[in-house]
């Protein structure tokens, strides 16, 4: 593999890792607060659809992003009401959200655009443009570092940079602020939070809504940055892979970054090297494409050592007598 191909591979990894990272961090906020969320997938999908639709109709990608975030937050709120207010089963609520999103996006887009569940192709103004960082052009000629800066670090959409900046921000929030202390506490022992005079319900709703915002950005990135429009089922299981990454990362932000980059790399490898030969046997392209999903199964099966989830995760909080 030559240097240019390597840069291309890594560049592609970053692009593919971004939606995973956003979804993974979304899950992190929710699960750290004790609300399991397998509805990440549905929230990404609904946001991808509304972002593309609104970006197409208004011609303004920022309005598209806002619409995507709003739709995702509505779904997050739904999950919150079901699992926090009514103390329902969090897994069932999450499944319901995934089904709802899968069905609704197709029906609504067909009724709006009559394209068989797609949105029309987005024009330039309806998409997030890639940003060229300062001096990228001038430094391009510098050996090694030049291409790394120009091709790998520079030239992504603003959402990619945002996603990567949210990692340190999340770490700081979680471990250095009052909000973070309470968030972690409410996922570990809500009774301790309650007796300390803090509202468990408010903390959990806040976390679930943050989760909605981040899933919204992830969805908008898929349809207005990575692609140019919405197609049905375009989230393609990313919400579930993000969950696997979250477990892999043991619910920690920096580890989440590493895990998502790994999944991104596998995804990129699968699409970039469709015909590779290993030890004289040619590996089928389908295998390469299935690799991220296979890894997901392996990780979820617990081959990565013991991952201890937040102790109150999945449990509705009921005041005891």
């Amino acid at each position, binding site marked *: 593999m030559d240097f240019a191909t390597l840069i291309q591979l890594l560049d592609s990894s970053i692009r593919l890792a971004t939606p995973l990272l956003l979804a993974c961090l979304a899950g992190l906020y929710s699960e750290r607060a004790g609300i399991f969320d397998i509805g990440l997938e549905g929230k990404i999908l609904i946001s991808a659809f509304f972002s593309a639709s609104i970006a197409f109709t208004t011609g303004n990608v920022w309005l598209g992003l806002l619409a995507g975030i709003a739709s995702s937050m509505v779904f997050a709120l739904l999950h919150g009401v079901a699992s926090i207010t009514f103390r329902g089963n969090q897994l069932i609520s999450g499944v319901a959200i995934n089904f709802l999103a899968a069905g609704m996006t197709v029906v609504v887009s067909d009724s709006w655009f009559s394209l068989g569940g797609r949105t029309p192709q987005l024009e330039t103004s309806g998409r997030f443009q890639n940003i060229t960082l300062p001096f990228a052009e001038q430094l391009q000629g510098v050996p090694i570092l030049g291409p790394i800066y120009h091709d790998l670090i520079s030239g992504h959409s603003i959402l990619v940079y945002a996603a990567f900046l949210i990692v340190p921000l999340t770490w700081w929030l979680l471990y250095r602020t009052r909000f973070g*202390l309470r968030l972690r506490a409410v996922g570990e022992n809500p009774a301790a939070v*309650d007796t*300390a005079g803090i509202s468990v319900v408010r903390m959990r709703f806040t976390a679930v809504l943050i989760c909605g915002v981040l899933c919204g950005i992830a969805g908008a990135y898929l349809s207005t940055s990575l692609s140019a429009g919405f197609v049905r089922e375009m989230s393609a299981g990313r919400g579930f892979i993000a969950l696997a990454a979250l477990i892999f990362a043991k619910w920690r932000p920096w580890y989440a970054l590493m895990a998502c980059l790994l999944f991104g790399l596998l995804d990129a490898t699968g699409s970039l090297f469709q015909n590779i030969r290993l030890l004289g046997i040619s590996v089928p392209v389908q295998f390469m494409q299935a690799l991220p999903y296979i890894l997901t199964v392996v990780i979820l099966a617990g081959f990565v050592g013991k991952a201890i989830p937040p102790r109150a995760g999945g449990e509705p909080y009921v005041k005891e007598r």
Partner: protein
Amino acid sequence: MTDTEPYAIELKGISKAFGPVQANKDISLHVRKGAIHGIVGENGAGKSTLMSILYGFYKADAGEILINGQPTPIPDSQAAIRAGIGMVHQHFKLVENFTVVENVILGAEDGALLQPSITKARRILKELSDEYELHVDPDSVIEEISVGHQQRVEILKQLYRHADILILDEPTGVLTPAEADHLFRILNGLKEQGKTIILITHKLREIMEVTDTVSVMRRGEMTATVQTADTSPEELAELMVGRKVLLRVDKAPANPGEVVLDIKDLRANDDQKVERLKGISLQIRAGEILGIAGVAGNGQSELLEVLGGMIAATGGSIAVNGEQIDLTGTSSDGQSRRARGIAHVPEDRQREGLIMPFMAWENMGFGYHHDPKYQKNRLFMDNAALKQDTAEKMERFDVRPPNPFLEAKNFSGGNQQKIVVAREIERNPDLLLIGQPTRGVDIGAIEFIHKQIIALRDEGKAILLVSVELDEIMSLSDRIAVMFDGHIMGERLPSETDEGELGLLMAGVTKGAA
């Protein structure tokens, strides 16, 4: 009290109902500032409800709360904290994987950023530690420190929030006698600094030892408030139950026969593969009660579970009536153990002894479904026979109400326990395993269950009693073995030992070291 100094706490006519159940009826209470006030009462007497109202967990249906003479509505915990009330719950409200200092500041942070709060909390914790003998390392993680330590963290948490009134709910349930003494020293220190303390407990000895005044609750009502110096445990027990109760267990000297249970070098692991029994050797003879004393979590549960066939042993041997029994495989399950004449009253009746949503008669059959008495033919059970049997057993064991069709969850703790005890004892086992026989059981039922255990012993049966209540161990056992960290620290005769010596053994201190 002088006329100028108001009461620290004054409750006027507090009432609270949960559906048809009147948990608190027109309760009035006065607690002087700087006093240690005890509240005693049976389970379900309404103590916890009353304290939950005072701490803002529940809203009273009627009544008024005055703090330092000021009418103070307490709609939530935040309001209670503002009013200077701190509560140390029976089950600690600590975040297990947080450090001490993080737990202390949770909810009482000074600003959006943590660092200033942590720095300040460290300083204040040090001052409080020095002042009240509350030694804790601010950077220890909660799950790595002892229960006594964790309780001190809870107290520190309240002091950090400037609590002037401290409510402690059953604080000594999980402590060794030495730790309990330490706690009482701390409480006395706090009292000298003018803090007001409310101590909820069912241990009358503690009430006599540390309180200045004591209130008794029965069936949601406050039946008496007396000066501790003017009362006796017997009088308090009578006030609690509403009739005379025997606090001491009457029993004739044991008359031990053949060895029924012979355990040699028994080993077992828990779910996490941590070794919990590290070579236990014990013998119990017919007509003898062996009491296992120890702080909860030192392997007593695993000992019961291995003997009862709930978990497999990893080594050693068990012989019953001289015959070796299997330690692993299907022939070591509870069913096989019962066939050997081993009956088991498990420690946690709600999880292991009963199925709560099932009716009493269904619960009465568990473990004994194969009894020919309950079979109609080869295919069907004779439920009518089981129901009839249940009704008779409920009558004999004074289960109230004696209704076989009531779901287990609708009986009080004491009556639930009577159902389990009736099921196991009525089988006339050679060996009875009984864990925490009176945990969460009211005084009247305790007396009854103790009598049944003694009666079984007098019939020449062997009994293995596990309890964290040292009083219970001391009064029931014919021999006492103390467990610590999976080992038997030693055996003593109740007549030749005292709480002090047992307490040291329970803390893992052997003679040589002490």
